[in-house]
């Protein structure tokens, strides 16, 4: 097999595409009730396995930043912990009648890994020695924070006036993460 096409030499985009396609298929299967929630969770954990070669492929570039490598690895571990913790918490919640401290401990299962993600982002800003890259990340984080605040406030009032359903507050992290991506695109388009 030639080097360029061997699995260990594929580009990060190949693995990212496979991961997104796999996730989309799992979501469709779950939404159409073709699979149960536990099966979807197990399949999703399997799909997340594609993130390992994705991170490794991104570490093979010409000018790889060791701080980015550490950030990607920390975030990947936290992501696995999150999906695993969420799966276990939902399974236990659906199977047993729990109250009080047990429910508190159960809520910590998916929560603690998300704290790990936030910690990984914080460490990136502390460890990044390149001031321009750090400036870009801080700028993206502030733009994303603005998006979360705007959506949160608007949704809160819509909810208060009973126009929209209640949404659990953990949405802030995924929306913030999406906002980070949007901010990067905005900065690229504006040539910043």
């Amino acid at each position, binding site marked *: 097999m030639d080097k360029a096409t061997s699995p260990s030499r594929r580009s990060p985009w190949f693995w990212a595409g496979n991961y997104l396609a796999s996730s989309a298929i799992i979501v469709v299967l779950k939404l159409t009730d073709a699979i149960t929630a536990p099966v979807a969770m197990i399949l999703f954990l399997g799909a997340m396995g594609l993130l390992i070669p994705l991170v490794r492929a991104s570490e093979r570039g010409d000018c790889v930043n060791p701080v980015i490598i550490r950030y990607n690895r920390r975030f990947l571990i936290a992501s696995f912990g999150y999906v695993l913790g969420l799966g276990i918490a939902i399974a236990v919640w659906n199977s047993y009648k729990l109250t009080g401290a047990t429910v508190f401990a159960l809520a910590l299962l998916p929560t603690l890994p998300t704290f790990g993600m936030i910690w990984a982002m914080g460490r990136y800003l502390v460890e990044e020695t390149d001031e321009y*890259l750090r400036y870009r990340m801080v700028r993206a984080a502030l733009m994303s924070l603005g998006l979360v605040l705007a959506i949160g406030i608007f949704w809160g009032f819509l909810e208060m006036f009973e126009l929209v359903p209640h949404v659990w507050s953990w949405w802030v992290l995924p929306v913030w993460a999406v906002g980070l991506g949007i901010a990067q695109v905005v900065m690229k388009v504006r040539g910043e």
Partner: protein
Amino acid sequence: MNNRLRVLRAERSWSQQDLADRLGVSRQSVNAIETGRYDPSLPLAFTIADVFGLPIEAIFSRD
């Protein structure tokens, strides 16, 4: 702020990556400074001046 980074780099036949390695920053940083998208901090401006062996005012000037 204006700068002569591109000219000074060309005079020495350095690529953006060569200069980035000498400064200990990313190639993106050099590109952003050269194209005026980012003004470096004072410590980085001093490092740039050291690398070229010139005073800061010979490299950077106000608009």
